[in-house]
């Protein structure tokens, strides 16, 4: 006993001494020999070659207009929805001519509307057909991705999406407007007889679960209608279809998603807002709102009290999962890698999306544009697994409904907590009274879990958007007025971490990169490798010495 007490401190002292020696050596190494103040030079900052902040594809899409007899609201942002697409989703694709459908890459079965049963001036039987599609998937003949869809400069993970039934699109542009993220918000009216058909064009089985939407467990034929595989029904296999039926009795902001292997399928993007609008006369709703954002043909019940209606769909993306379909092609390997090897309990999000994009791309299409004195109704969902803390600068909006149920006592907040699959309806009131609004501006709106304002750890990115007062929307650039420059942000290199984040402030001597920084890093990283053997061997030697001593004592 006495000998043990003696030995333990001896070992501890030995180890401590060695560690201290290693630490001294490390500090000395970093300062360099001689200790002179001779820092390395600053590397020249690469000149960014940014892509255009606004590609300016269709400036004519921005104005308020009447298309095919359908009123389409103005959207002054860079990339508004195509007014013809909006009008087709209002009229019904069965009421649009074939040439227009071909231009939009839409199949006539996407949204079929008919039958004003109650004589109130709008159709009451709605047939919706969606396809399950992979975007940014494997490409056999080249390293290019099939149907590239970028969430931020240079970033294009694979997603699965529910998209309105489409048709051949030789130009490829129109298809990208409908096959994107998130799965599109859908709108129906209370009392509509809705037939929602999923045609499974994907290589894995899928279903549709109508989350929060009033639906029977089985349809009239006794077929499962709840979308839960092996509980209400069998999943829809590749090449098969199923029609879900519902006639909603309650209005509100609901949700729809695939319920097959949901820890992966929800994460891959098979989720969307399903908004049941209140019943009104002449209320022909915009059945799909591609890419979410502004509803350019708002519902009648919303227009009574608000000037604009927005859908806001938040998602989180673990790139480890979303890159598997770009690395493998065999469906068996994909099933193994995505559903068994990938462990969703170890999920760690890298990308944070709002309406299918990360900042700065969100600034092209997902701001809340508002005029002083106006009111905007925003339907929000956390479509992934994150709990969000959404904060609005310059405003304290009012939460008027949660999970599709109106709040008896609406609450005014500047942070909204929204957990997975939760929906919030918030009203942004642009009345400059120091409470609802502090006045006009380009006001930041973002998740206050700060990691969500990054793109794979590079800030600013993630789910940032802005509340932009109309007079601060620049008509020439179609982007919000802002201080400083966003040039760095519209480069692949910035999000690859190759450009110092303060590079545009003009102080490279303190914010730039240290010349040959990578060599220095390597020198430093060898330190623990060198320290390890010293400590280890010393402990080993000490241990062996003691063993010999003890052996001697025993014999």
């Amino acid at each position: 006993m006495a000998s043990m007490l003696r030995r333990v401190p001896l070992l501890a002292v030995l180890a401590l001494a060695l560690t201290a020696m290693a630490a001294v050596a490390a500090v000395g190494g970093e300062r360099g020999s001689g200790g002179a103040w001779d820092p390395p030079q600053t590397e020249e900052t690469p000149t960014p070659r940014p892509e255009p902040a606004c590609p300016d594809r269709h400036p004519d899409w921005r104005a308020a207009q009447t298309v095919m007899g359908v009123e389409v609201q103005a959207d002054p942002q860079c990339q508004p929805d195509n007014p013809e697409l909006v009008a087709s989703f209002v009229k019904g694709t069965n009421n649009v001519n074939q040439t227009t459908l071909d231009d939009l890459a839409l199949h006539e079965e996407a949204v079929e509307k008919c039958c004003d049963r109650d004589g109130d001036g709008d159709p009451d039987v709605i047939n919706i057909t969606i396809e399950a599609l992979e975007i940014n998937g494997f490409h056999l003949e080249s390293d290019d991705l099939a149907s590239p869809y970028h969430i931020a400069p240079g970033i294009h993970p694979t997603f699965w999406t529910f998209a309105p039934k489409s048709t051949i699109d030789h130009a490829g542009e129109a298809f990208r407007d409908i096959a994107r993220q998130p799965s599109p918000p859908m709108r129906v009216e209370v009392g509509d007889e809705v037939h929602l058909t999923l045609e499974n064009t994907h290589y894995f089985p899928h279903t549709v679960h109508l989350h929060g939407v009033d639906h029977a467990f089985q349809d009239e034929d006794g077929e499962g209608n709840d979308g839960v595989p092996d509980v209400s029904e069998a999943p829809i296999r590749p090449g098969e279809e199923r029609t879900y039926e519902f006639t909603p009795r309650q209005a509100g902001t609901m949700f729809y998603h695939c319920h097959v292997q949901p820890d992966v399928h929800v994460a891959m993007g098979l989720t969307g807002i399903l908004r049941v609008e209140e019943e009104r006369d002449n209320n022909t709703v915009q059945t799909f709102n591609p890419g979410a954002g502004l509803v350019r043909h708002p519902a009648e019940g919303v227009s009574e009290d608000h000037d604009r209606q927005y859908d806001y769909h938040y998602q989180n993306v673990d790139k480890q999962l979303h890159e598997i379909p770009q690395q493998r092609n065999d469906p068996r390997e994909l099933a193994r890698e995505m559903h068994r090897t990938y462990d969703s309990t170890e999920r760690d999000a890298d990308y944070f999306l709002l309406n299918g994009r990360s900042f700065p791309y969100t600034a092209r299409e997902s701001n809340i544009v508002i005029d002083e004195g106006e009111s905007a109704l925003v339907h929000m969902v956390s479509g992934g697994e994150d709990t969000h803390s959404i904060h609005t600068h310059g405003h304290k909006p009012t939460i008027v409904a949660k999970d599709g149920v109106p709040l008896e006592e609406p609450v005014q907040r500047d942070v909204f907590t929204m957990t997975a699959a939760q929906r919030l309806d918030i009203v942004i009131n642009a009345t400059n009274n120091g409470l609802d609004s502090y006045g006009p501006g380009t006001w930041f709106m973002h998740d206050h879990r700060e990691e969500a304002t990054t793109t794979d750890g590079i800030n600013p990115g993630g789910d940032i958007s802005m509340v932009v007062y109309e007079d601060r929307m620049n008509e020439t650039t179609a982007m919000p007025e802002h201080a400083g420059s966003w040039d760095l942000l519209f480069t692949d290199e910035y999000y690859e971490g190759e450009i110092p984040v303060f590079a545009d402030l003009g102080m490279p001597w303190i914010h730039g990169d240290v010349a040959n920084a990578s060599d220095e890093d390597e020198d430093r990283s060898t330190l623990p490798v060198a320290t390890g053997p010293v400590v280890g061997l010393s402990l080993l030697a000490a241990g062996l010495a003691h063993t010999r001593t003890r052996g001697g004592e025993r014999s």
Partner: protein
Amino acid sequence: MNRALLVVGLLLAAGLVASTSSAKVVNENTDDLPPGCEEISEEVTYTVRGGSEPARGMDGVAFTFDERSFEVPACAEVTVTFVNTDPIRHQFMVHGTYPDGSTLIELPGEGEDTATWIAPSTPASLMVHCGVNQHQQKGMKAQFLVAGGEGDVPNVPGISGLPPEDRHDAHAHGEETADDRPAPGPGALLALLGAAVAVGLRGNA
């Protein structure tokens, strides 16, 4: 009156639900001879089934055509009847046809349609695929070998094989995998070993 409207409405709804939409044929060519062809050399016809059903039991294939290699003479008039076995959208799209560059049959669901085109005058291997996202990648690919062709079109199931394994690496986009991560250096291992011995000795004492 209202009841009459309701009946009409229901009938319309029933008709709407039961309606099937038409297929789409793009860039058919029955008479415009490709350069070097003085006349149609031969008329050939094929019926091809495509979808998930022909892929049943094929390892690693989700969708395919029941025939995936066709040999036709130069300047032949080729007529294909494409049968979609699924209630979902499929295409039979031939690339490299004259004069528009491709000829397409698209079927929105179960059914069939026919298209005609004229083979070129010189040997060529024309690629056929379904352009619905990932269908080509998951097996829906075929080839027309005109006048013997110029070798097999790559990645046609059962004809030219699936992509080689090394393509998997080519498609990795910067994600750090377990293999890429730096392994713990020998120093760390030795430190662990030393610590283990020290702890072991303490326990023995």
